[in-house]
């Protein structure tokens, strides 16, 4: 359509005119063309268009386009201690107002980091909340890690929802029935969002857990005042955790932004995508050793060799390569599980553009001394 207009203008011998612009003189343009023989091949209409575009560009104030160098730099978030010095050295701590993902398989030290962060936060005087998808928190371990239980809110999600449990028992003839809450006050948008949180709602117990986790997290983020909120999805099947839509993570990220709250997600695999500011992959060195063994690259690390000379006194080391009872030089009741060797790898950080790094640290059981 626009080309038709131009051609019409050309046919009439008039240039194409923008609004509010003076009509250029064709004769003067012809004179200009004569002065520049290099452009003699261009049609007059093209030249008119070029000059018009130049005029328009000159009218745009330079301030309307801001170069990237002048854009406001988002202030770096406050970093607080995770409770494990090695992790602090790796990541600089846990960022406030951001989502941090801690991933890893079982026995990889995720819960160690979780409890250390809780202990550090509660000892700073902050209130913390754990939204526990699998009801997996061990109170004795939390106390041993130094968590102040008075400051810890524990939400134990289950496979059965009390609302759903009540529903079948309600007799249809009962006149008084529950009505939806008025959409007012804190967390009112949570009910509206709950439907889109799980992509397909079914009677799968994992979905029910997940729905509870997400709604509880929404409510806690809306409530405010917590220093650390933990989503413990560590025991959820990976396929169930992956069903959390990315929009939910975006909402969590927006909800926690500019607040002094650390949102920590414990998972099997990373699922929040670019919404997380920090992604740490945890692995047990024992597991690494198994992989190395598979690759015929044997290496003894702490806890992998009985009678290891570097082992601290009083600890009985574990040899994963020994597979039969006969190989144990000590009776089983004379051994103690001393702890784990953990390797933490910084996979992604929006705060630090340094290359991928990893650290190793040890944990010890409460009875290891």
């Amino acid at each position, binding site marked *: 359509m626009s080309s038709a207009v131009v051609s019409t203008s050309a046919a009439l011998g008039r240039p194409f005119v923008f609004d509010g612009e003076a009509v250029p003189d064709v004769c003067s343009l012809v004179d200009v063309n004569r002065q520049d023989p290099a452009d003699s091949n261009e049609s007059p209409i093209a030249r008119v268009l070029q000059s018009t575009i130049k005029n328009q560009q000159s009218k745009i104030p330079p301030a309307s386009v801001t170069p990237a160098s002048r854009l406001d730099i988002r202030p770096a978030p406050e970093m607080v201690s995770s409770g494990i010095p090695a992790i602090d050295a790796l990541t600089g701590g846990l960022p406030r107002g951001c989502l941090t993902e801690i991933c890893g398989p079982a026995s990889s030290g995720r819960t160690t980091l979780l409890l250390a962060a809780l202990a550090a936060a509660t000892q700073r005087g902050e209130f913390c909340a754990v939204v526990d998808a699998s*009801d997996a928190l061990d109170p004795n371990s939390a106390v041993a890690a130094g968590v102040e*239980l008075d400051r810890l*809110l524990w939400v134990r999600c289950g496979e059965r929802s*009390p609302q759903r449990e009540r529903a079948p028992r309600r007799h249809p003839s009962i006149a008084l029935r529950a009505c939806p809450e008025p959409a007012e006050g804190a967390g009112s948008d949570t009910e509206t969002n709950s439907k889109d949180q799980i992509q397909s709602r079914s009677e799968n117990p994992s979905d029910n857990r997940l729905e509870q986790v997400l709604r509880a997290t929404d409510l806690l983020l809306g409530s405010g005042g917590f220093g650390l909120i933990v989503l413990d999805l560590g025991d959820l099947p990976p396929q169930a955790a992956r069903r959390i839509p990315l929009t939910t993570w975006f909402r969590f990220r927006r909800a926690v932004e500019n607040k002094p709250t650390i949102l920590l997600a414990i998972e099997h695999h990373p699922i929040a995508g670019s919404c997380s500011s920090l992604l740490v992959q945890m692995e047990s060195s024992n597991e690494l050793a198994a992989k190395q063994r598979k690759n015929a690259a044997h290496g003894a690390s702490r806890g992998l060799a009985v009678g290891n000379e570097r082992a601290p006194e009083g600890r009985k080391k574990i040899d994963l390569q*020994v597979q039969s009872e006969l190989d144990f030089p000590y009776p089983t009741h004379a051994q103690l599980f001393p702890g784990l060797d953990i390797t933490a790898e910084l996979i992604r950080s929006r705060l630090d553009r340094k290359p991928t790094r990893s650290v190793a640290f040890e944990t010890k059981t409460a009875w290891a001394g």
Partner: protein
Amino acid sequence: MPFACIYVPNFPVAAALRAEPELQARAVAILEGKPPLEKTIAVNGKAARLGIAPGMTKAQAELCSELALRPRSALQESSAHAALLDCAQSFSPCVEDAASDTVLLDLAGMESLLGPLPEISRAIHQRAASLGLAAHVAVASNPDAAVLAARGFPGVIVIPAGKEAEQLSSLPTEVLFDREDWQKQDAQKENEKKSAARLLETFERWGIRNLRGLAALPEVSLSERLGQEGLRLQQLARGAATRTLVPVEAPPVFEEAVELEHPIVLLEPLAFLLNRMLEQICARLGSRALATQELRLTLELENFSALNQQSKIKNQQFVRTLRLPLPMLDSKVFLKLLQLDLNAHPPGAPIMKIHLAAEPARQRSAQGGLFLPPAPEPEKLELTLARIAGMVGENKVGALELLDTHHPDGFRMRRFVAEVARKTPQKKNPDSTAATAAVTPLRRFRPPVRVNVTLENGQPMRVVCAKNKEVQGDVLWKAGPWRASGDWWEREAWSRDEWDLALRNGNAVSFYRLVHDLLSGGWFVEGTYD
């Protein structure tokens, strides 16, 4: 010594309007009596303009289609009277409960605290309005003059000392007699009415229609004709009667009740009524600088439903008690909490009567610190916890408390309160932090996962789990067993052997706690070390 009088005209109507504020714009008449002999006993101004007067039968009043007829409610009137007393006690500790619609208060010494008398009068008027009562307020140098002025002049009036006779002179002689004391017994009321009518008739015959005329009568002649009663009335008309107040201590009872003509069958209209009642209770508590830590909702139900035997229904009453961790005074929060509670525990039958009582408590005082970490707002947190509890279950959210037991999972859930004793954050020595290693925690499976264990020489060599394929494999390393038992004197006795295992499942190696239950003989994986 200034005294103030708060008078609520048309008290039954005012009580009804307080319970149903949407009736303010309508003509209202209050009915009393047994059907079908109900008669109107009080009407508001709009109804009077429509020609409705006290004493009309219900059938006569119903001819006016715009009229809203309401039965007289003793509950509403007692709530309104309690609100009137709260209003008075929020300004002065010395309050006399003169009648159900009249309250007197001593304002001596209050000027230095609350400002000049006109300002105090206006504040009393506004406070009464905030409690849902359209009151007349009068201030005078003696209680009786204040009562007469409050009954005679609408709005707010302040009579300067010495000008009582001049100010009261324009009032009709009817104000000298109690028009209606709504709480008195019928026989007593009838006697008073008869004597008042006789005196009024006498004054009418004498041509005395206002207090100026009565005040100007010679005392001796008046005494000869009407006796001491006549002199008393003249003293009242001159504003010269003196007496002392009889102060009452209003009991700290904060209750509101609504009787319904038609039963409520949905929670939504119930929420509207609850909202109004909560606002009134909060206003009353606020006027006495109090808050509440416990709300008790009693619903009288129409039918006793056998389906709800398990809920707390006693004598067709449904009782719910809302206990708060901290004193609060926010009607919106209370309403949400009640709604959530009723959603979780519906009454199960139509509601005929609503009774809401608040247990008063001192308002909490909190001193925020500039350098203290933030804490959740108690009201918001309570709502959040109620919502989460509705989702996951009441005993599934809260704070942890370890029990004094050797049981491996011995803990209980308790209420989470965001106001534990605040302490200064500890600054740890970084060297000491570095020296202490992180603790290897156990990640529990609730309930423990039942497994099949292959034993060799009494020791586990292979673990197989039918439900969880991740919790199985060859035993690479093991430590144990450690025997533990307890509570053998209880029915929930436990006795077990614990093992720590390293299991290889594929390439992954994980550490688990395996438990052999010695009482049932089963093997369980209790958790993983993570």
